[in-house]
Protein backbone atom coordinates (compact mmCIF):
# COMPACT_ATOMS: atom_id res chain seq x y z
CA UNK A 1 0.00 0.00 0.00
CA UNK A 2 1.45 3.31 -0.91
CA UNK A 3 1.48 6.22 1.46
CA UNK A 4 -0.79 8.10 -0.82
CA UNK A 5 -3.42 5.35 -0.95
CA UNK A 6 -3.43 5.10 2.79
CA UNK A 7 -3.86 8.85 3.10
CA UNK A 8 -6.73 8.98 0.68
CA UNK A 9 -8.33 6.03 2.43
CA UNK A 10 -8.33 7.84 5.74
CA UNK A 11 -9.29 11.14 4.21
CA UNK A 12 -12.65 9.86 3.03
CA UNK A 13 -13.93 9.22 6.53
CA UNK A 14 -16.52 8.66 7.76
CA UNK A 15 -18.62 7.93 4.72
CA UNK A 16 -17.06 5.98 1.92
CA UNK A 17 -17.30 7.95 -1.28
CA UNK A 18 -18.24 4.93 -3.31
CA UNK A 19 -18.94 1.47 -2.10
CA UNK A 20 -19.36 0.24 -5.65
CA UNK A 21 -17.53 1.69 -8.64
CA UNK A 22 -20.10 0.43 -11.16
CA UNK A 23 -23.70 -0.78 -10.93
CA UNK A 24 -22.87 -4.37 -11.89
CA UNK A 25 -20.66 -4.63 -8.82
CA UNK A 26 -23.57 -3.73 -6.58
CA UNK A 27 -25.78 -6.23 -8.39
CA UNK A 28 -23.22 -9.02 -8.09
CA UNK A 29 -22.85 -8.25 -4.42
CA UNK A 30 -26.60 -8.17 -3.81
CA UNK A 31 -27.20 -11.39 -5.74
CA UNK A 32 -24.68 -13.13 -3.52
CA UNK A 33 -26.39 -11.88 -0.36
CA UNK A 34 -29.80 -12.91 -1.75
CA UNK A 35 -28.62 -16.38 -2.77
CA UNK A 36 -27.19 -16.92 0.67
CA UNK A 37 -30.45 -15.72 2.22
CA UNK A 38 -32.39 -18.26 0.19
CA UNK A 39 -30.04 -21.05 1.25
CA UNK A 40 -28.29 -21.73 -2.05
CA UNK A 41 -24.93 -21.71 -0.25
CA UNK A 42 -23.57 -21.11 3.22
CA UNK A 43 -21.46 -18.10 3.99
CA UNK A 44 -18.44 -20.29 4.65
CA UNK A 45 -18.82 -21.82 1.22
CA UNK A 46 -18.94 -18.32 -0.18
CA UNK A 47 -15.87 -17.17 1.75
CA UNK A 48 -13.95 -20.19 0.46
CA UNK A 49 -14.99 -19.48 -3.13
CA UNK A 50 -14.05 -15.80 -2.85
CA UNK A 51 -10.80 -16.59 -1.11
CA UNK A 52 -9.79 -18.97 -3.90
CA UNK A 53 -10.27 -16.15 -6.40
CA UNK A 54 -8.67 -13.25 -4.58
CA UNK A 55 -5.55 -15.16 -3.64
CA UNK A 56 -4.70 -15.96 -7.23
CA UNK A 57 -1.53 -14.24 -8.38
CA UNK A 58 -2.19 -11.15 -10.42
CA UNK A 59 -4.80 -9.58 -8.17
CA UNK A 60 -4.38 -5.82 -8.43
CA UNK A 61 -2.67 -4.31 -5.43
CA UNK A 62 -5.06 -1.37 -5.41
CA UNK A 63 -8.03 -3.72 -5.19
CA UNK A 64 -9.84 -2.26 -8.18
CA UNK A 65 -10.50 -5.72 -9.59
CA UNK A 66 -12.04 -6.99 -6.37
CA UNK A 67 -15.55 -7.35 -7.76
CA UNK A 68 -14.21 -9.08 -10.86
CA UNK A 69 -12.91 -11.75 -8.51
CA UNK A 70 -16.20 -11.62 -6.65
CA UNK A 71 -18.13 -12.31 -9.84
CA UNK A 72 -15.79 -15.15 -10.85
CA UNK A 73 -16.23 -16.68 -7.39
CA UNK A 74 -20.00 -16.44 -7.68
CA UNK A 75 -19.98 -18.08 -11.10
CA UNK A 76 -17.72 -20.88 -9.87
CA UNK A 77 -19.87 -21.54 -6.84
CA UNK A 78 -23.11 -21.57 -8.86
CA UNK A 79 -21.51 -23.88 -11.37
CA UNK A 80 -20.32 -26.22 -8.61
CA UNK A 81 -23.84 -26.20 -7.15
CA UNK A 82 -25.34 -27.05 -10.52
CA UNK A 83 -27.37 -23.83 -10.55
CA UNK A 84 -25.83 -22.20 -13.62
CA UNK A 85 -23.10 -23.55 -15.83
CA UNK A 86 -20.38 -21.52 -17.50
CA UNK A 87 -21.66 -22.27 -21.02
CA UNK A 88 -25.16 -21.16 -20.10
CA UNK A 89 -23.82 -17.93 -18.63
CA UNK A 90 -21.49 -17.36 -21.61
CA UNK A 91 -24.37 -17.77 -24.08
CA UNK A 92 -26.71 -15.53 -22.15
CA UNK A 93 -24.03 -12.88 -21.58
CA UNK A 94 -23.39 -12.82 -25.33
CA UNK A 95 -27.13 -12.39 -25.89
CA UNK A 96 -27.17 -9.47 -23.46
CA UNK A 97 -24.22 -7.85 -25.24
CA UNK A 98 -25.98 -8.20 -28.59
CA UNK A 99 -29.20 -6.87 -27.07
CA UNK A 100 -27.32 -3.85 -25.75
CA UNK A 101 -25.80 -3.23 -29.13
CA UNK A 102 -29.19 -3.46 -30.84
CA UNK A 103 -30.84 -1.06 -28.40
CA UNK A 104 -30.85 2.61 -29.39
CA UNK A 105 -28.93 4.85 -27.01
CA UNK A 106 -31.05 6.09 -24.13
CA UNK A 107 -33.54 3.22 -24.30
CA UNK A 108 -33.57 0.52 -21.65
CA UNK A 109 -31.64 -2.58 -22.66
CA UNK A 110 -33.95 -5.59 -22.76
CA UNK A 111 -33.01 -9.15 -23.54
CA UNK A 112 -35.86 -9.20 -26.08
CA UNK A 113 -33.81 -6.77 -28.15
CA UNK A 114 -31.26 -9.48 -28.88
CA UNK A 115 -31.35 -10.05 -32.64
CA UNK A 116 -29.75 -13.45 -32.11
CA UNK A 117 -26.33 -14.70 -33.13
CA UNK A 118 -25.24 -13.41 -36.55
CA UNK A 119 -26.35 -15.85 -39.23
CA UNK A 120 -23.87 -17.96 -41.13
CA UNK A 121 -20.95 -16.90 -39.01
CA UNK A 122 -18.25 -18.41 -41.13
CA UNK A 123 -15.29 -18.26 -38.88
CA UNK A 124 -13.85 -16.57 -35.86
CA UNK A 125 -11.99 -14.04 -38.01
CA UNK A 126 -15.17 -12.49 -39.33
CA UNK A 127 -16.67 -11.38 -36.11
CA UNK A 128 -14.91 -8.10 -35.48
CA UNK A 129 -15.25 -4.65 -36.87
CA UNK A 130 -17.69 -5.55 -39.62
CA UNK A 131 -20.90 -3.79 -40.37
CA UNK A 132 -23.02 -6.77 -39.44
CA UNK A 133 -25.45 -6.33 -36.58
Amino acid at each position, binding site marked *: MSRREAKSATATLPADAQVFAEPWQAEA*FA*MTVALHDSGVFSWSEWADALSAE*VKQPGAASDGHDYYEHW*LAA*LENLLSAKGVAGKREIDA*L*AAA*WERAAHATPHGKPILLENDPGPAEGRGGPTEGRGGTAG
Partner: protein
Amino acid sequence: MSHDHNHDNELDPFAARVRALETILTQKGLIDPAAIDVIVDTYETKIGPRNGAKVVAKAWVEPDFAVLLIRDATAAIGSLGYTGRQGEHMQAVFNTADTHNLVVCTLCSCYPWSVLGLPPVWYKAPPYRSRAVIDPRGVLGEFGLTLPATTKIRVWDSTAELRYLVVPMRPKGTDSWSEERLADLVTRDAMIGTGLAREPA
Protein backbone atom coordinates in the same frame (compact mmCIF):
# COMPACT_ATOMS: atom_id res chain seq x y z
CA MET B 1 -10.87 9.07 -33.62
CA SER B 2 -14.20 10.74 -34.27
CA HIS B 3 -17.30 9.84 -32.37
CA ASP B 4 -19.83 10.80 -34.97
CA HIS B 5 -21.02 7.28 -35.69
CA ASN B 6 -24.33 6.25 -34.23
CA HIS B 7 -23.54 5.17 -30.71
CA ASP B 8 -25.21 2.00 -29.60
CA ASN B 9 -25.52 0.90 -26.04
CA GLU B 10 -22.66 -1.18 -24.80
CA LEU B 11 -22.50 -3.56 -21.90
CA ASP B 12 -19.03 -4.32 -20.73
CA PRO B 13 -18.34 -8.04 -20.33
CA PHE B 14 -18.75 -8.00 -16.57
CA ALA B 15 -22.06 -6.16 -16.72
CA ALA B 16 -23.27 -8.61 -19.37
CA ARG B 17 -22.30 -11.60 -17.23
CA VAL B 18 -24.07 -10.15 -14.22
CA ARG B 19 -27.19 -9.63 -16.31
CA ALA B 20 -26.92 -13.20 -17.57
CA LEU B 21 -26.69 -14.49 -14.02
CA GLU B 22 -29.63 -12.36 -12.94
CA THR B 23 -31.68 -13.70 -15.82
CA ILE B 24 -30.91 -17.33 -14.97
CA LEU B 25 -31.42 -16.92 -11.24
CA THR B 26 -34.67 -14.99 -11.68
CA GLN B 27 -36.02 -17.64 -14.07
CA LYS B 28 -35.17 -20.32 -11.53
CA GLY B 29 -36.95 -18.35 -8.83
CA LEU B 30 -33.77 -18.07 -6.74
CA ILE B 31 -33.70 -14.28 -6.66
CA ASP B 32 -36.25 -11.52 -6.95
CA PRO B 33 -34.97 -8.46 -8.85
CA ALA B 34 -36.89 -6.14 -6.52
CA ALA B 35 -35.16 -7.70 -3.52
CA ILE B 36 -31.81 -7.16 -5.20
CA ASP B 37 -32.54 -3.45 -5.45
CA VAL B 38 -33.44 -3.33 -1.77
CA ILE B 39 -30.18 -5.02 -0.79
CA VAL B 40 -28.15 -2.59 -2.89
CA ASP B 41 -29.95 0.39 -1.39
CA THR B 42 -29.49 -0.93 2.14
CA TYR B 43 -25.76 -1.39 1.77
CA GLU B 44 -25.23 1.83 -0.12
CA THR B 45 -27.19 4.12 2.11
CA LYS B 46 -28.45 2.54 5.35
CA ILE B 47 -25.67 0.43 6.80
CA GLY B 48 -22.39 2.05 7.58
CA PRO B 49 -19.85 2.84 10.25
CA ARG B 50 -22.34 5.04 12.13
CA ASN B 51 -23.81 1.79 13.46
CA GLY B 52 -20.48 0.73 14.90
CA ALA B 53 -19.83 4.22 16.26
CA LYS B 54 -23.06 3.99 18.27
CA VAL B 55 -21.97 0.65 19.70
CA VAL B 56 -18.60 2.08 20.75
CA ALA B 57 -20.06 5.27 22.24
CA LYS B 58 -22.59 3.25 24.24
CA ALA B 59 -19.80 1.05 25.58
CA TRP B 60 -17.90 4.19 26.63
CA VAL B 61 -20.78 5.62 28.66
CA GLU B 62 -22.56 2.48 29.93
CA PRO B 63 -20.32 0.08 31.87
CA ASP B 64 -23.01 -2.63 31.81
CA PHE B 65 -23.15 -2.47 28.04
CA ALA B 66 -19.37 -2.62 27.84
CA VAL B 67 -19.39 -5.77 29.96
CA LEU B 68 -21.99 -7.36 27.70
CA LEU B 69 -19.98 -6.30 24.66
CA ILE B 70 -16.91 -8.07 26.05
CA ARG B 71 -18.83 -11.21 26.98
CA ASP B 72 -21.19 -11.56 24.05
CA ALA B 73 -20.65 -8.97 21.34
CA THR B 74 -23.17 -10.60 19.00
CA ALA B 75 -25.92 -10.14 21.59
CA ALA B 76 -24.80 -6.64 22.63
CA ILE B 77 -24.71 -5.41 19.05
CA GLY B 78 -27.94 -7.22 18.24
CA SER B 79 -29.63 -5.40 21.12
CA LEU B 80 -29.15 -2.18 19.13
CA GLY B 81 -30.81 -3.76 16.13
CA TYR B 82 -27.66 -4.54 14.17
CA THR B 83 -27.65 -8.16 13.18
CA GLY B 84 -25.42 -9.88 10.69
CA ARG B 85 -27.08 -11.46 7.71
CA GLN B 86 -24.52 -14.19 7.36
CA GLY B 87 -25.03 -15.67 10.80
CA GLU B 88 -21.57 -14.54 11.80
CA HIS B 89 -20.48 -14.02 15.38
CA MET B 90 -19.00 -10.77 16.52
CA GLN B 91 -16.17 -10.22 18.92
CA ALA B 92 -15.32 -6.81 20.31
CA VAL B 93 -11.66 -6.18 21.05
CA PHE B 94 -10.90 -3.28 23.36
CA ASN B 95 -7.87 -1.08 22.96
CA THR B 96 -6.01 -0.25 26.16
CA ALA B 97 -2.99 1.86 26.98
CA ASP B 98 -0.88 -1.30 26.57
CA THR B 99 -2.53 -3.02 23.64
CA HIS B 100 -3.75 -1.81 20.28
CA ASN B 101 -5.97 -4.06 18.16
CA LEU B 102 -5.95 -4.31 14.39
CA VAL B 103 -8.40 -6.27 12.23
CA VAL B 104 -7.68 -7.89 8.89
CA CYS B 105 -9.04 -10.69 6.78
CA THR B 106 -6.08 -12.47 5.23
CA LEU B 107 -8.36 -15.04 3.59
CA CYS B 108 -10.57 -12.73 1.58
CA SER B 109 -12.44 -9.73 2.94
CA CYS B 110 -14.60 -10.82 5.88
CA TYR B 111 -15.73 -7.67 7.63
CA PRO B 112 -18.37 -6.77 10.23
CA TRP B 113 -20.91 -5.49 7.72
CA SER B 114 -23.70 -4.99 10.22
CA VAL B 115 -21.73 -2.38 12.15
CA LEU B 116 -19.31 -0.98 9.57
CA GLY B 117 -21.07 -1.38 6.23
CA LEU B 118 -18.96 -2.64 3.37
CA PRO B 119 -15.17 -2.54 3.64
CA PRO B 120 -13.03 0.19 2.11
CA VAL B 121 -11.05 -0.73 -0.98
CA TRP B 122 -7.72 -0.96 0.83
CA TYR B 123 -9.13 -3.51 3.28
CA LYS B 124 -9.88 -5.84 0.38
CA ALA B 125 -6.62 -5.24 -1.46
CA PRO B 126 -3.69 -7.66 -1.32
CA PRO B 127 -1.11 -5.32 0.30
CA TYR B 128 -3.15 -4.73 3.44
CA ARG B 129 -4.28 -8.35 3.67
CA SER B 130 -0.77 -9.69 3.39
CA ARG B 131 1.11 -7.10 5.41
CA ALA B 132 -1.17 -6.41 8.37
CA VAL B 133 -0.08 -9.65 10.03
CA ILE B 134 3.61 -9.52 9.09
CA ASP B 135 4.25 -5.84 9.71
CA PRO B 136 1.36 -4.25 11.58
CA ARG B 137 3.47 -1.38 12.86
CA GLY B 138 4.60 -0.52 9.36
CA VAL B 139 1.04 -0.65 8.04
CA LEU B 140 -0.19 1.60 10.86
CA GLY B 141 2.61 4.01 10.02
CA GLU B 142 1.27 4.30 6.49
CA PHE B 143 -2.07 5.27 7.96
CA GLY B 144 -0.29 8.01 9.90
CA LEU B 145 -0.59 6.15 13.18
CA THR B 146 2.60 5.80 15.18
CA LEU B 147 2.17 4.00 18.47
CA PRO B 148 4.67 3.99 21.33
CA ALA B 149 7.17 1.14 20.97
CA THR B 150 5.86 -0.23 24.26
CA THR B 151 2.32 -0.62 22.94
CA LYS B 152 1.58 -4.19 21.91
CA ILE B 153 -0.26 -4.66 18.64
CA ARG B 154 -2.65 -7.61 18.38
CA VAL B 155 -3.82 -8.55 14.92
CA TRP B 156 -7.15 -10.32 14.56
CA ASP B 157 -7.76 -12.33 11.42
CA SER B 158 -11.45 -12.40 10.50
CA THR B 159 -13.27 -15.41 9.17
CA ALA B 160 -16.67 -16.03 7.64
CA GLU B 161 -17.91 -17.05 11.10
CA LEU B 162 -16.16 -14.57 13.35
CA ARG B 163 -15.68 -10.87 12.74
CA TYR B 164 -14.10 -8.27 14.95
CA LEU B 165 -14.94 -4.76 16.03
CA VAL B 166 -12.21 -2.68 17.62
CA VAL B 167 -13.36 -0.53 20.51
CA PRO B 168 -10.92 2.37 20.56
CA MET B 169 -9.99 4.17 23.76
CA ARG B 170 -12.23 7.06 24.73
CA PRO B 171 -10.44 10.33 24.08
CA LYS B 172 -9.50 12.42 27.11
CA GLY B 173 -11.51 15.51 27.86
CA THR B 174 -14.86 13.98 26.90
CA ASP B 175 -16.14 13.12 30.39
CA SER B 176 -19.34 15.09 30.17
CA TRP B 177 -20.10 14.26 26.56
CA SER B 178 -23.33 12.66 25.42
CA GLU B 179 -23.33 9.32 23.68
CA GLU B 180 -24.38 11.00 20.46
CA ARG B 181 -21.56 13.49 20.55
CA LEU B 182 -19.06 10.78 21.41
CA ALA B 183 -20.19 8.68 18.46
CA ASP B 184 -19.00 11.45 16.16
CA LEU B 185 -15.45 10.85 17.37
CA VAL B 186 -15.53 7.19 16.37
CA THR B 187 -14.25 6.73 12.84
CA ARG B 188 -14.45 3.67 10.68
CA ASP B 189 -10.67 3.29 10.77
CA ALA B 190 -10.69 3.47 14.56
CA MET B 191 -13.00 0.45 14.56
CA ILE B 192 -10.74 -1.47 12.18
CA GLY B 193 -7.71 -0.42 14.18
CA THR B 194 -5.93 1.56 11.49
CA GLY B 195 -6.76 4.75 13.40
CA LEU B 196 -7.70 6.08 16.82
CA ALA B 197 -10.85 7.84 17.90
CA ARG B 198 -10.75 11.52 17.00
CA GLU B 199 -9.64 13.97 19.64
CA PRO B 200 -12.26 16.51 20.72
CA ALA B 201 -11.84 19.66 18.69
